[in-house]
């Protein structure tokens, strides 16, 4: 907790010294961190492996971009409206998705996100098709890279606090109960479906908030924001860190952005590298890199003793 506060203070204090590009990278990390934490509420805490979480991230961005650009709705209204659109979509989608489990759930969440992706690609009049919707500008006060970084940092802190309160609350423990043993929770009198539904809405809410930050960071949204590639990326961030903790996804997001930055400055083969990393993680560290390293460390100390 102290360490976290120190890092945040250092970030806030050091920001003016950084270049706009570096600030954008940091903003991107924080945005993805919120996105990854939101998926972790589903995957890590409730045990629901969604392969379509980009749906809520991208939909929020699209909804906001569409109403700001086509209807000239002001920022103060457009951003919350985008978030609301995502949560409403989640309320509908999960009526369907939560009727299934495990492998089926993976496929249905994927399919539902593809439904939105297909709309974004093919409904050109509304969405701009493959070209997406460019030209969104941040309001004057947060137009600078530093200004937007502070906004993102604030949103990140509030989101992290809200989620850590949630996972430590009785509801949070009930979610973990659902993850560990659904049947037992049901026997204890919990309405398991309601808890899953609630977790899905919370996950969509924070994914949508991340989607808004992403939209205003880039001033642009395209169908790739809804694609399975983005869903897989956020899944990887959660798994790289450690599912079922809030710190894990944050670490995963930071590592992902750093990796993308390093790899793309050395080679064009980003797809290959990321694919290779997925394979390695799936095979050797399915519990996350953190858990993997902790286990290694424990073994070494045991051998030494």
């Amino acid at each position, binding site marked *: 907790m102290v360490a976290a506060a120190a890092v945040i203070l250092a970030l806030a204090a050091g920001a003016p010294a950084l270049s706009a590009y570096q600030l954008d990278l940091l903003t991107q990390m924080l945005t993805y961190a919120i996105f990854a934490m939101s998926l972790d509420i589903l995957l890590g805490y409730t045990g629901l492996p969604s*392969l379509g979480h980009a749906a809520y991230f991208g939909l929020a961005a699209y909804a906001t971009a569409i109403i700001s650009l086509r209807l000239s709705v002001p920022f103060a209204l457009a951003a919350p409206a985008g978030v609301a659109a995502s949560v409403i979509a989640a309320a509908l989608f999960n009526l*369907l998705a939560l009727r299934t489990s495990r492998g089926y759930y993976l496929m249905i969440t*994927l*399919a539902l996100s593809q439904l939105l992706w297909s709309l974004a690609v093919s409904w*050109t009049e509304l969405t701009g098709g493959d070209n997406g919707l460019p030209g969104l500008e941040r309001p004057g006060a947060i137009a600078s890279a530093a200004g937007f970084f502070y906004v993102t940092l604030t949103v990140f802190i509030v989101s992290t606090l809200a989620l850590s309160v949630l996972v430590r609350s009785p509801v949070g423990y009930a979610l973990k109960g659902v993850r560990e043993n659904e049947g037992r929770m049901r026997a204890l009198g919990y309405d398991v479906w309601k808890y899953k539904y609630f977790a899905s809405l919370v996950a969509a809410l924070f994914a949508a908030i991340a989607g808004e930050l992403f939209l205003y960071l880039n001033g642009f949204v395209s169908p790739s924001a809804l694609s399975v590639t983005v869903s897989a990326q956020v899944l990887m961030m959660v798994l790289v860190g450690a599912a079922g903790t809030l710190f894990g996804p944050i670490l995963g997001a930071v590592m992902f952005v750093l990796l993308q930055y390093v790899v793309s400055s050395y080679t064009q083969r980003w*797809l290959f590298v990321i*694919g290779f*990393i*997925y394979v390695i993680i799936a095979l050797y560290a*399915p519990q996350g890199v953190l858990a993997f390293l902790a286990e290694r460390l424990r073994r070494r100390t045991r051998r030494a003793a």
Partner: protein
Amino acid sequence: MTFWIVNILNGLSLAMILFLLASGLTLAFGLMRIVNMAHGSFYLLGAYLAFSAMQASGYFLPGAVIAVMAAAALGMAIQRLLLSRLHKQELSQALLTLGLLFIFSDIAFWIWGGNPVLPLQPALFSGTVNIFGVPYPFYRLFLIGVGLLLALLLWYSLDNTKIGAIIRAGLDDEEMLRGIGVNVPLLFACVFALAAGLAALGGVLGGPLLGVFPGADFEVVLLAFVVVTVGGLGSIAGAFWASLLVGLIDNFGNAWFPQLSLFTIFLPMILVLAVRPTGLMGRA
């Protein structure tokens, strides 16, 4: 009249490509619980390999055979070396196969470049045939024939042969199958190889029709997932009927609502799943 004949036949020929993809995918899921994202890679590699072999040899058949065999071997290697270590871990398997999809996609881009290629149709089946006075490409009819034949073959061997009985038993209770002495790891490897081979055949036959391009792997794997979920996971018959449904809907959707071409595929899927979460013929 022409409109109906052409669109129905076009829908059927697309449906047969989809069936080649979906039948293997659904068997692999039913038997091994693998959500195989890399299934599209087998399609893409099959199509590209056949294209290159055809350019080298000038003939269709050797290229087709090489492509299918290579994909089957690759599929078997992936199952034996990688997926078998993650038995029953759906999420890890999905992540692994997604990684493979990315890797193969990049390798294909590396070898065959970014421009779409259009493999030639086999000379024997080029030209057109008159159907009720409408000239129609012979190759598409050939495709429909091959698809129907393979569907019947799969259907028959699943229902009437010993191997088929073993596979059906595996769909129901894999542990019991191990218990009575069946070599389940070998069975898994073979079924996965079959699935990869069928997907590659889909690429070989579908390539001349749909073209081969970077990103085709992602496109077809998503379509195959739609077919498999609509049909019901693990059901060959379900995959067949769902292929017909999706193939026809796609063609008529394209004809009537060209702006919403992809949406017209995903929407019926959502509707089917809303009524029957396990698909048309799936079991809970």
